[in-house]
């Protein structure tokens, strides 16, 4: 997991935020639903990948139950929103629930190290998904009145704001002492503790930040979709997608999850026209190659090329 220097991170943050700023003009330039839906998907993916990147990339804790927090955010936000709460408030409540749950289980889950944390969180995510599926088996559909007032651009701008927020959060984290401590834990937890880093506290902070963003993304999902099964956002593929995007782009870097998300959604949408799920075959193979050969993902590859060219 090769990080980037502080200057490169800031350069990337500026570039990404500029690009997101330009995307704010898209509804004016091309007010087509298919285009907006496509970009919406990218933006949601950026938020999810970036949120996963905080806990896995920076703090080094491979959380395979990330979908649980996305799902909790969606569940709470949806119920409150349909009940009449303003969406912003409903989303914040959803995120707060996700974070509260994360902190509740975090202290126990972080007793697990490395791969055991990963499979423990995977099981936890499955417990939540199964339970929600049992308790709320009925599909959740918006009331007719809400559907009548549905405006895609609202959702689009909200997604844009969340993606920008996630990039800003990671940029701030990457340059801070907090982020430095997290990276120390990622490299060697015992050594980090020996130098005075409170590992549990930092890991919980990373998890809270990560799950808060995932909870907001869940709220956005609840706001965006007209009907879905309540257990759907708890599905493990939400975690797996975030993981793939982050690793392929470059885990533990700021631009990695963004690049990964763009590439992933573009390929998925393009390939899905002809072959169902074929993108997973490509990304599965690409992912294996990256873990084995290029642990820093595309960002690392780009850095290598840049250094070679600069010579």
């Amino acid at each position: 997991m090769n990080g980037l220097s502080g200057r490169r991170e800031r350069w990337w943050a500026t570039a990404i935020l500029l690009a997101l700023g330009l995307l704010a003009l898209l509804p004016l330039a091309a007010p087509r639903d298919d285009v907006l839906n496509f970009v919406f998907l990218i933006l949601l993916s950026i938020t999810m990948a970036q949120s996963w990147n905080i806990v896995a990339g920076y703090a080094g804790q491979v959380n395979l139950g990330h979908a649980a927090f996305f799902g909790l955010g969606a569940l709470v936000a949806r119920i409150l929103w349909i009940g009449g709460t303003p969406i912003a408030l409903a989303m914040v409540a959803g995120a707060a629930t996700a974070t509260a749950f994360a902190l509740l289980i975090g202290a126990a889950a972080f007793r697990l190290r490395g791969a055991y944390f990963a499979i423990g969180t995977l099981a936890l995510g499955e417990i939540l998904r199964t339970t929600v599926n049992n308790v709320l088996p009925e599909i959740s559909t918006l009331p007719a009145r809400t559907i009548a007032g549905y405006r895609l651009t609202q959702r689009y701008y909200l997604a844009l704001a969340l993606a920008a927020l996630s990039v800003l959060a990671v940029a701030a984290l990457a340059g801070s002492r907090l982020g430095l401590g997290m990276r120390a834990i990622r490299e060697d937890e015992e050594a980090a503790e020996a130098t005075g880093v409170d590992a549990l506290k930092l890991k919980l902070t990373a998890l809270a930040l990560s799950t808060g963003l995932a909870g907001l993304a869940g709220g956005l999902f609840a706001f965006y979709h007209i009907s879905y099964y309540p257990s759907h956002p708890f599905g493990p593929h939400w975690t797996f997608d975030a993981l793939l995007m982050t690793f392929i782009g470059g885990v533990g870097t700021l631009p990695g999850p963004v690049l990964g998300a763009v590439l992933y959604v573009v390929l998925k949408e393009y390939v899905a026209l002809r072959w169902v799920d074929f993108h997973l075959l490509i990304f599965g193979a690409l992912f294996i190659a990256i873990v084995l050969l290029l642990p820093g993902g595309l960002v690392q590859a780009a850095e290598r090329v840049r250094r070679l060219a600069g010579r």
Partner: protein
Amino acid sequence: MNVLEQQLLLGLFIGGLYGLAAAGLSLVFGVMKVLDVAHGELIMLGGYMTVFVVAFVGLDPFVALLLVIPLSLLLGVALYWGLFSFVVRADEETRVKNSLLIGFGLALALHALAVQLWTADERSIVTPYAGAVITVGELSIPLVRLASLAVAFALIGGLHLLLARWRWGKAIRATAEDWQAALLTGIDVRRAYLLAFAIGTGLAGAAGTLVTVGYSVSPSIGLEWTLKALIVVVLAGLGSMIGTFVGGLLLGVAEAASAATFGGPYREVVGLVIFVVVLVVRPRGLFGR
């Protein structure tokens, strides 16, 4: 009353398959310190192999095992050479983490491949004796599932003997205990890894056959079976294949009991909750002996 007993009996039958699924995973993890989360997908592939052997060669599914197991062994050899031989070069902690990630990528790829090749539909195998039932008192025992349990038990027993008696079986156990010491006694540890992985994949293939005969196979069953196998491995610990099998039986019965108590939909949750609790209570020691 006899409804409950009937349910527990069916739990025992599926528990045998959990045990078989877990044995392969346990062997691979114990020997190589590689956590292959694509194990469920290997079971899935075994299921499809069985479907095709039965359809095109016209064999009885239980006889088809004689083809499915060797084919799965070969698949295991290929996967070891192609992927996991690169993972075992790393130190132990990196090894577990990387193997998890690689297994994960493999699981995705195999799942997608299965959907491409065979569509997402469920398939099962109907034998002429599918409906046959043996009645003991008030219990009715489906013949296919009884046979599956017997086959699973026989495979575990065979594996146990293989590890206890065969020269390379002992080498595999020695490697599991201390791979450096194994090297010092002249054991080619890479070869022990290859054998363990191939056998683990062979067991997954066999489990796939039994799953398809007794239940059904679809490209998406992988994750569920990986989780079941992980739960059993965590419960039973490493080292004893018989112990792993018993752990599988227990999980099957526990699931059936909880389904009977809390209602069917909670069948899955019980095992997962036990799993998480055991993990957290014994965060380091659980995979130890």
